[in-house]
């Protein structure tokens, strides 16, 4: 038998459950989200700084994206030098491809933290550019894998 007390308790639980839905994990600050993207691009640029011309093209593109991201970090009050800048060196094909995919995933993960047309447009450019680089690197090293949703946060 459903009592009135039971109904009240159920209503209260429903309201509380509704509130809990709103209490999703807070997104990272714009500064830390952009720093994550910047670190990933710097890592990619370092890993691709030598080798075949197409790989070095990726390095230049990653460096260009890193420059835009560093400016954006400054714009939102962060410090671009907080993102590590790894030294160039010998990197295995598997690691190069992983860094390409990592940069793309970092940009996708950053998106919910970025508000406003300027930052969102920057993020869309980052996603499209890093995605193309990740595909070219994977094809270059024969490590391509079918994925309809590349960059999905793990």
């Amino acid at each position, binding site marked *: 038998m459903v009592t009135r007390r039971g109904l009240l308790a159920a209503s209260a639980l429903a309201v509380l459950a509704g509130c809990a839905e709103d209490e999703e994990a807070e997104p990272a600050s714009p500064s830390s989200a952009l720093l994550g993207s910047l670190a990933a691009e710097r890592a990619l640029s370092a890993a691709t700084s030598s080798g075949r011309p197409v790989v070095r093209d990726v390095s230049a593109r990653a460096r260009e994206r890193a420059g835009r991201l560093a400016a954006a970090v400054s714009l939102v009050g962060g410090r671009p030098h907080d993102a590590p800048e790894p030294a160039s060196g010998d990197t295995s094909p598997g690691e190069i491809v992983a860094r390409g995919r990592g940069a793309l995933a970092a940009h996708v993960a950053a*998106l919910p933290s970025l508000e406003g047309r300027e930052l969102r447009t920057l993020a869309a450019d980052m996603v499209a550019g890093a995605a*193309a680089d990740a595909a070219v690197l994977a094809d270059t090293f024969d490590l391509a894998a079918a994925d309809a949703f590349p960059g999905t946060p793990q």
Partner: protein
Amino acid sequence: MTGDPTPEGLVARRDPAPGRRLVARRDPAPGRRLVARREILLAAAGAALARPSAAVAAADQDPEVLLRLVTREDAAALAYREAAPEPLPGVAAEEADHGKALRTHLDAVGRRAPAPALDAPARRLAEAPQDERLEAAIALEASLVEDYAAAVPALTEPGVLQTVATILASHAQHHARLRTLAGLDPFG
């Protein structure tokens, strides 16, 4: 029967039968307001419905963008199927997967996508002679990249945003791979 006035003007009394429910009666003091349980329940339900919610807010802003994208995605899938053999293995299936993912978000806000139909860039691919298909596919993917990139600033709900971003990434990859197939700079 005994009763204790509450601060809200409710007067509670124990029902004579043991273990029974509490009931409310009107406070005899003038100016006191009765708040019946029914009103409390209604207020709780109203609060639940009226609560500020990112999902509810997104429901107001994202569906039109999603509808436009799913229409484009369906058109692309249709074009790749009609222009078989597909220039990239599995590309038609990937476009279909994109459409399904976008439909899931649309379903969540109670909207339905229209039936698939070719749009101009997709029709160009579907009707292209064999020697022009690659060029038409490159143009189709470029237009998809452009539309998805333009959608990103307009979206609010984080889950929708990330789905759209990964589909943008997928089209950017198709574009680069098709350009490579055509002997062009993949990043052009």
